[in-house]
């Protein structure tokens, strides 16, 4: 989309470094998942060992895999939807409204981010228990949404804030109502931000662990992340199993990320007004 392709030696160097920094750990995750438990420490720093798909065949044969995948999907989609429903309008309003409340609101959002998840466990457990939402998808979706909502608002807000007011004003002068200005003008213009935050929330809510194993009481309701945790238990850690589950767990949600990636476009104003 850029006007001219030119050589960028610095960017190239950065890319090489990044490939090393992220490629090697991923390679190691995959290699470890292909080892037998015995080879974990004998071949720690080498790529030479007899690979086995045992960890994957065990993982894929795990009867809990399908149900936990489905649970993770429900939780992730539910959480992402609820977060978006709340965060997109809030981010827009906090980017546009002209009142001191905005500053207070943003400060509260930052502070909410600071509450350690472990510290919310007990009070939220009480809350969900008293509303009979423990061990339900609705309860976990509510809890996860609360966790990610402040983050989503803070992240999306700059994408609305940077839209030149003049564009919206033009539509307002034209008689558009607040909601219409929001949907017809601001939302398309902030599309990249909303999309990225959506994919990010989808990824984190898919992988969320602590609330998942605390607010779900029956194992059939456990999300994928609990299955990964269970590779480490009383009498040892199944490293290949953990790595294999890690890879299997990320793949479906990663596909969604790729899909959203393709939707990102260059140019703030291009899509909206053409």
């Amino acid at each position, binding site marked *: 989309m850029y006007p001219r392709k030119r050589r960028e030696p610095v960017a190239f160097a950065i890319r090489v470094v990044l490939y090393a920094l992220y490629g090697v750990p991923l390679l190691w995750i995959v290699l470890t998942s292909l080892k037998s*438990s*015995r080879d*974990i*420490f*004998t071949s720690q720093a080498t790529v030479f060992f007899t690979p086995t798909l045992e960890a994957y065949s065990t993982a894929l044969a*795990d009867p809990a895999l399908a149900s936990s995948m489905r649970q993770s999907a429900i939780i992730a989609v539910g959480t992402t939807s609820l977060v978006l429903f709340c965060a997109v309008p809030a981010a827009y309003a906090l980017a546009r409204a002209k009142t001191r409340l905005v500053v207070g609101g943003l400060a509260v959002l930052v502070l909410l981010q600071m509450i350690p998840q472990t510290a919310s*466990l*007990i009070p939220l*457990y*009480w809350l969900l*228990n*008293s509303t009979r939402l*423990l061990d339900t998808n609705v309860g976990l979706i509510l809890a996860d949404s609360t966790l990610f909502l402040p983050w989503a608002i803070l992240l999306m807000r700059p994408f609305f804030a940077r839209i030149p007011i003049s564009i919206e004003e033009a539509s307002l002068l034209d008689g558009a109502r607040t909601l219409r200005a929001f949907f017809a003008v601001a939302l398309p213009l902030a599309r990249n931000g909303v999309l990225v935050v959506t994919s990010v929330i989808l990824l984190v809510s898919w992988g969320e662990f602590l609330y998942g*194993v*605390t607010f779900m*009481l*029956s*194992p059939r309701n*456990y999300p994928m992340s*609990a*299955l990964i*945790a*269970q*590779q*480490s*238990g*009383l*009498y*040892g*850690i*199944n490293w290949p*199993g953990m790595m294999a589950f890690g890879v299997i767990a990320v793949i479906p949600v990663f596909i969604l990320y790729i899909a959203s990636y393709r939707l990102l476009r260059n140019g703030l104003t291009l899509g909206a007004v053409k």
Partner: protein
Amino acid sequence: MESTPNRRGRLAGLAAWGAVASLALGACAGGDTDVTASPPPGNDEPVTLTVWHYYSADGQAVLDDLAAPFTDRHPNVELEFVFIPVEQLTTRVVTAASAGTGPDVLLFGASGLYDMASSGAILPMDDWWSGYADQDQFSDGVIHRIDGDIYAVAAYVNLIGLWYNEDMLSDWGVDLPTTIPELEAVMDRAVAEGINGITLTGVPGVESQWQGFPWFTSHGFSYGDPQATAMEDTFTMLQDWVAKGYLSAEASTWDQHTSFQHFLAGSAPFSVNGNWQVGAASEVEFANSVAPLPLSANGGVLLGGELQNIGAFSEHPDLAREFVEMTFFSAEGQLLLLENFGTIPARGDAAASPLIGDNPILSGFVAIVQQQGRPSPSPEVPSASVNEVENLVGNYWSRAIARDGDPRGLAADLIAQLLPLLED
């Protein structure tokens, strides 16, 4: 604040453990056990029993096998095994109790006992126990009491010993060490061969208290009379080992599993590790076995194991008790756990099984129970402080290995923080 039970009423002692061991060594033949004495209740309404545990995914399959006799007898009962990560189990149980809920059956570590009892998540089981037909198969050492009330019983015993690589020792023509200087001589040989002398656990936390206990009691320490000099001597020994290359300073990040993996990878002739490694040890190509740690007469190893009780909020307490009796408390159940995890059965009849007698490693561990076994948690530590004491001591054990301070300073700091916790 309410008055809390401060002093552990545990009666356990070496004598009690000796009883387990002597039974196990075959002095007493076990009779066949019969837990299905009473007919099943004539109730076939569907019932769900939940069991909270921290067995890994592999262990889950064993739990299913373990439960088979019970589910055969009660086809109407659906068992729900709920995995909870070990570091969260106690918190989760107490949180549930604070909301007036909880599982039917609990499998947990001894460090969670006090919190669970105090929060009302588990109730005294004296009535159950006194009416339990097979209670005399269990030695007193596996019965966990607070203020004289029984709050849990351990179905099996876990402990640590000195694992050794037989091939290495015979290649080098050295004998099995029985004292610390002899151990150091062999480790010196190992370093000359270009490897470490020993692997052990130093990750901060309760595991390290468990690993350190034999060594600092061997140097004269006890929780009843906590002397800084004994700790200083222990830490001096550790740092000497690290300085000479006997022990990698990296052990300060190793849990027991990682420590053993390094031993199995051939990085040292010795490992301080547990009976539950017997399965992993049988998979490697070199010959290995286990011996008592080369301790002084004061030294002892802690006898742990997971505890069982039913949950205070169970809606089917009778079924829950029956489940525990037919699984963890039964001889068959304990032998199944032995086969899968190498855990030493608490029942005398099960411990007399040829599964132990015919296995040199397991009978080696039973011998250690007899020679060096000490109750865990240590009875001198007030119940309310057990968890904090074990973490504190474990953290200093870790610091000593990482050489995060000199032995004298570390020992002085540790004792200063330990003393208030050991007071009533």
